[in-house]
């Protein structure tokens, strides 16, 4: 029985630098889904555990606020 998707949020105000996973992609725990960039530092947004990316909610180049949802994810 699949669990309901969880929301992954940006931990910092940033721009979306690169999106590495597409919806439906299986990713392992700690594997990056996308990379944010803020103040010249790349901040990977990683899978909390093994699972599948359900939705990417942002586009490359987009500005995101701290706490903004960037992807949904299912175990």
């Amino acid at each position, binding site marked *: 029985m699949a669990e309901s998707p969880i929301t992954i949020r940006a*931990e*910092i*105000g*940033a*721009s979306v630098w*690169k999106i*590495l996973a597409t919806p439906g992609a299986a990713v392992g725990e700690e594997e990056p889904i996308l*990379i944010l*960039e*803020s*103040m*010249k*530092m790349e*901040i990977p947004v990683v899978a909390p555990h093994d699972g599948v990316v359900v939705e990417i909610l942002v586009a490359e180049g987009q*500005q995101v606020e701290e706490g903004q949802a960037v992807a949904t994810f299912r175990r």
Partner: protein
Amino acid sequence: MSGPVLIANRGEIAARIARSCRRMGWPSIAVFSDADATALHVGAADRAEPVGAAPPRESYLSIPALIAAAERSGARYVHPGYGFLSENAEFAEACARAGLIFVGPPPSAIRAMGGKAEARRIAEAAGLPCLPGADDALEEAAARIGFPVMVKAVGGGGGRGMRRVGRAEDLQGALDAARREAAIFGDDRLMLEKLVEKARHIEVQILADAHGNVLYLHERDCTLQRRHQKLIEECPAPGMDAALRAELGRRACDLARAVGYVGAGTVEFIAEAPLQADRIWFMEMNTRLQVEHPVTEMVTGLDLVEWQLRIAAGEALPFAQADITLDGHAVEARICAEDPARQFLPSPGRITALRWPEAGPDLRVDAGFGTGDLLTPHYDSLLGKIIAHGATREVALGRLALALDQCAAEGVRINAAFLAAALRSPEMRAAEINTGFLEAARKRLVEASMKEQAA
């Protein structure tokens, strides 16, 4: 008198370059992106030119926008500062094509030192000891060199793609992961070198004119880092004796001559403590002014920006190696908008209040931002630098720690209290440090800084 100088940068370094220009009587022109119209560096210069939208690619990294600003403003010189286009040979060439004098080395020297693997080959040919390493047949090379090794991205700066590999069986996985990471940045070539455990970072400042004079302005110790980026730098390096200083200075000058270097540059070395000639190896050369150049200025009494400009104007260096003094000890701390308690995560936002310490004869404050400024995610987190001087290392460290206590920010997090705790740590006071110290001791230093603030 000469100039005018277009300062193709922002923040503290743009303001600092403008100060030297003003003292020399050279007019200066700041540039600003849409996000920086009211920034501190804009007011520091005599005039200012807009160069485009907030994303660096459209402003501070746009060669056409900067050349156009130089032409509009009647600039004769272009000072690139550090970062942005400072190590971009195409920018130096574009300046020359537009009849502008690029304040930096010839494009050929920028290119020669630009790639890690090529720079290493040139350094070896110039007689500089390098760590055992390779940029092809990595598996065989690692077996020959022996573990542990450090895997690096050939085109990577700022520690990107760097991985420590302790055992042969972990090499393939590390290479795969490093290659994936490096590919994200557009160049998946890797190299590896013998790993130096408990490493110290030592660098030598050089100054070369267009008449064949090459001098070294002593070393800086930049061992205290996080994420492979420096936070505290000092001169002289603890444990450096006169003979070793002369030996490293000679190596740095040999490399500068080998690439036809002109201007200010820095040759970086990795060292194993205790410092000795056969345990220090060439790492890379930075073909620009460094963030930490003020510690060198404090002990030599020379203004490096002034000499960059005078060299660019064709002047010959009027002093000799024996004239370069080393007076006392200087230490710098980089004040960044970041949160040491959250793994040094950057802290963008509106600075609702920012207090810098009061500058004095032995305390220099190179500020780039102030109360009311907005820190956007587009630019790096360096707010400014505080540099203390003293007759001894102990005095300089103590003076800098007290100055850091006077720093305070609201609206964004800064690392001042953390750096003060690092300066007061027994490890720093005894100079028993390595490049991993700040990250390894982070929690303890964060706790110490909180106690200090509560007291």
